């Protein structure tokens, strides 16, 4: 199953991912992305790919496990 990944150092806290997929992404008190789940069911993939792609600094990826 595909897996959510994040480059925590690159994250700028713009939070577009949270707006796009609040079930998968959140922002912590330091302004850094939090992954709320690891694995992505196939049916969720298009929506989560769009949410990952909405990151202005390309800090988010979805990788094939």
């Amino acid at each position, binding site marked *: 199953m595909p897996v959510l990944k994040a480059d925590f150092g690159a994250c*700028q806290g713009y939070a577009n991912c*949270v707006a796009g997929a609040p079930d998968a992404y959140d*922002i912590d*008190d330091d*302004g850094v992305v939090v992954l709320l789940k690891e694995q992505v069911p196939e049916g969720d993939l298009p929506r989560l790919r769009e949410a990952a792609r909405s990151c202005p600094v390309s800090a988010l990826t979805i990788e094939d496990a």
Partner: protein
Amino acid sequence: MSHTGTTVVIGTSVAGVRTAQALRTEGYDGRVVLVGAEHEPPYDKPPLSKQFLAGTWEGSRLTLLAPAEAADSGIELRLGAAARRLDPAGHRVHLADGSELAYDTCVIATGAAARPSPWPAESGVHVLRSLADGAALRADLVRGGPVVVVGGGFVGAEVAATARALGCEVTVVDPLPVPMGRLLGPEVGAHFADLHRRHGVASRFGSGVEGVTGRSGRLRVTLTDGTVLPAATVVVGIGAVPNDRWLAGSGLLVDDGVVCDAYCRAVDAPDVYAAGDVARWYHPGRGTHLRVEHWTNAAEQAARVAHNIAHPDDPRPYAPVPYVWSDQYDWKIQIAGTPVGATRHTVIGGLAGATARGGALYTDDTGRLRAAVTVNWPRAQAVCRRLLTTHTPFATAVDQVKALASRGAAGP
């Protein structure tokens, strides 16, 4: 779902690129052609005023869609080919190189251009919108000498911050009494004036520009109050205008952008869509047509347009909460909703000084949260964006953000 035919996406900024990519994510398996006026591979614009201008990022790092990546996604790139004319009846786009492209569906994503400087000088007066603009401005900034930035909005403030970091002496000029005062209101805007001051950037807020004369290295900026500011380089950041003039004669309704319905379809050509800075669409939640010039809107609108093309049986209206960020000096500024038109606001946390971490929440006659401006507080911003989506009462929103502030203050 199987799609036949061709979608031609015109424009290679974030709206165009994301439309092409999202078509594939949405399962669209027709032909996708992405047409751009510039010769460079599609690139991202926010770093132009920051990392690229500062010289910490090479231009290649701004690439949004490398040719190999486009090929992998089945996106045909036609670069260096500006669209000259659209023929909606004939379903054709005519390009500057004399060729034409037939389409079944067309997406207009030609973006906006920097409003040109109204003050002609021989040289040394810059706008900032393209990679070429950024390279030219950087070349002048590293040569040194005083810089005058005309316009205290997002672009102007970011350029001022970067020029200052490069060691330039900088003055920001804006006819408004406080920067972004029209957007944020005078009280919150005053903190942004202080931000410039704290970083050693001079400001002339409340003064307009009468004229700019001379040439690069030896410019003179005359203000409406008679002051003359010498400058080596002048940057003019006074807004943008949609790239819609090429649509004159197409028959499409164009009125400061391509006028679209709630599904982002041109009102008089249902197989033509628009996305990003060039689209003026009907926002069903607002009950009015809007045109938004921010990165996140371009990306979100592109995704919605792609969905509506790929799933004609399930069209979805586009009713986003506007969102924009700006990185200025040591401040990360994030704005959701529309502060303009608010009747009052509440400040939570602090908006002053180097350790600022706070937000201003705005409301109006509806009694609901209308907008949130945060400084160095992404978590509160993320919460407010969610509260705006759900039309939360203002008092509830204030309570939630205050609770977040006390939690943050308690430390880990």
